[in-house]
């Protein structure tokens, strides 16, 4: 247990009345302070039940629940919930109350004074990207689905809880808006650093939102819990492999960046007006069919085929073809791959922050990076096994 466990479930069980098979069976789980832990798994595996056990919307039939090392299994559930933000797919805005009144729900219950509540409402609307003057006095039916979900998040943040529980918060929203809400939420989280448990059945959403992902099987059994990159690099069993599905290798490229693991290669370059013979020689030596033409600020501008450089002709600024694809240092290997696929020379030129040429990414770099990530993950799990 490296960072602090903000939430700790200790052998938590839930068997619904009238059923024999538990919906959640002996689940032990730690959620670290400031992280987003995503619970993901097939429908009916007990994700929502697990989430609702944490704020005691459902009473556990066994085990203990700790927040900040305080046993909350038996404390007053209503008071407990006022400390925990809760966002659900149905949003559940109160239709007979204005947006402001909705957001004020928990602060008012906690007895905040009026001025503080009003200020908080405006703050939160701004945080979720809604103009307070426009939206404060509207009723929920006057909002679009995306706006309503933003208000749902603002309301959950109402009294600045340290913990947020989110059950498929973006599940009922169209893909484009969902993508935007996810990005906005991630950037809000960057500042707020809440401890978040996030439920989804969409592995891509899990990979995008999670600092860590817990892949759950039947009865909320944890099949694998780890960072998205490690899960993608090393699914522990067939269940997990099936669940993350096709293309997990490609998805893994999202977590590798151009600077960290990739040793970039030099590439034959030349400047306008330079003697082509030397450039051709460099290209021969490097085994490339192209030379990258740089302008006087060292920005990559054109791909010039070696075959155009014969016969002593000089290179002008319109030789070859324009460089359309390039990536910056720090971009993900996924972006590098995309650029590579559309690049004339089948490599992605990498530029520094000032736009000057730094090197190129080739397919072999991606291959190496992925293999390294897999090896590291495998070693990590071998080590875990050895120590346990």
């Amino acid at each position: 247990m490296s960072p602090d466990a903000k939430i700790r479930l200790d052998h938590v069980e839930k068997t619904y009345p009238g059923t024999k098979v538990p919906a959640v069976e002996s689940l032990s789980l730690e959620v670290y302070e400031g992280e987003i832990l995503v619970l993901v798994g097939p429908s009916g595996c007990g994700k929502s039940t697990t989430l609702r056990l944490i704020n005691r919307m459902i009473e556990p039939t066994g085990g203990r629940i700790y927040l900040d090392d305080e046993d909350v299994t038996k404390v007053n559930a209503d008071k407990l919930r006022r400390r925990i933000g809760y966002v659900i797919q149905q949003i559940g805005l109160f239709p007979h109350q204005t947006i402001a009144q909705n957001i004020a729900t928990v602060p008012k219950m906690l007895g905040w004074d009026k001025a503080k509540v009003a200020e908080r409402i405006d703050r939160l609307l701004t945080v979720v990207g809604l103009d307070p003057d426009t939206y404060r006095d509207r009723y929920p039916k006057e909002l679009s689905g995306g706006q309503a979900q933003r208000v749902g998040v603002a309301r959950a943040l109402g009294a600045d809880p340290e913990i947020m529980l989110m059950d498929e918060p973006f599940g009922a929203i169209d893909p484009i808006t969902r993508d935007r809400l996810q990005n906005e939420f991630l950037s809000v989280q960057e500042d707020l650093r809440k401890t978040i448990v996030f439920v989804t059945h969409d592995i891509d959403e899990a990979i995008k939102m999670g600092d860590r992902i817990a892949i759950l099987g039947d009865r909320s059994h944890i099949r694998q819990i780890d960072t998205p990159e490690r899960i993608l690099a090393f699914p522990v069993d067939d269940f997990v492999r099936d669940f993350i599905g096709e293309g997990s290798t490609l998805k893994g490229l999202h977590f590798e960046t151009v600077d960290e693991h990739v040793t970039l290669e030099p590439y034959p370059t030349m400047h306008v007006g330079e003697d082509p013979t030397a450039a051709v020689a460099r290209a021969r030596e490097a085994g490339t069919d192209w030379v990258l033409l740089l302008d006087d600020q060292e920005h990559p501008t054109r791909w010039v085929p070696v075959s155009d450089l014969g016969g002593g002709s000089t290179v002008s600024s319109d030789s070859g073809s324009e460089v359309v694809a390039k990536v910056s240092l720090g971009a993900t290997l996924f972006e590098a791959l995309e650029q590579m696929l559309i690049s004339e020379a089948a490599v992605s030129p990498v530029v520094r922050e000032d736009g000057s040429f730094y090197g190129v990414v080739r397919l072999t770099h991606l291959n190496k990076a992925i293999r390294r990530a897999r090896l590291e993950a495998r070693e990590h799990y071998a080590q875990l096994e050895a120590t346990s």
Partner: protein
Amino acid sequence: MSMTGAQGRIGYEGQEKDNPEPPPDPNTGSDATDAAPTEQPASWFLRAREMNLGLKLAPVAIALLGLGLFLYYRSLGLGTTAPSSQTSALEWSTKLWPQLTQHLTIAFWSTIIVVVIAIPLGIALTREPLRRYGPAFVSTANAGQALPAYGLLIIFLTLMGQGLTTVVVALAVYALLPVLRNTMVGLDGVDRGIIEAGRGMGMTRGQVLTRIELPLAVPVILAGIRVAMILNIGMATLAFLIGGGGLGVTISVGLKLQQNEVLLVGSTLVAIVALSFDWVGAVAEKYLRPRGV
């Protein structure tokens, strides 16, 4: 749904007045793809309702009916040309006015009793642990509703004897069901997600009931009360059968003496009372409906 141009225009004006579009977004620009909620096309009938045509016209119609009755009453020549039995049956200060107040008293108290009993009962039957008895309770009450009102009055007569109290109690029992059923339907109709959100934020069950469920159920509950009230006003016409008085006395005298004038005055008065209270109910439903719903 087809709609002629003229009707469409009428409806459109009504919407402009009563249901202004939310102002356009001077928004941060972050919402280009969040589609704004769109207005559903409404039938002519619904649009007429949105314009409150009924609400505005009803008082006029009631006033006209009242005026007509007044003129008719004056034209009868009571105390002069009219037969003496008619004159005495239709005397305002000793017959009609006391009967009218009696009639209203019966309807008022039976409705009050209905509300006081049915709403808490409806709440209880939608909570744990009584929740599961709710459907059984309502279907029993439904069966009870099939009992003729007349029979109910007689049963209560044998139980409680003659008099106003008996009538009030019998009517309250008779009109209980609409309010009970609407209370339960109204509370059950509140979206589960809304309740879940309320509970999830740490509202107690009581807070969810009083701040969320009841306000949202108000329109449905009010509709039930309105039905009960109208039932009671109508049923109070039978009160005379067990010595409860009311405008039913005049109507029965008219029937007995075969004097259509008496019959007409009595029944028109009942109609005016019923229509007036129905209108009050409609106004209440409109203005007590929570905003935003």
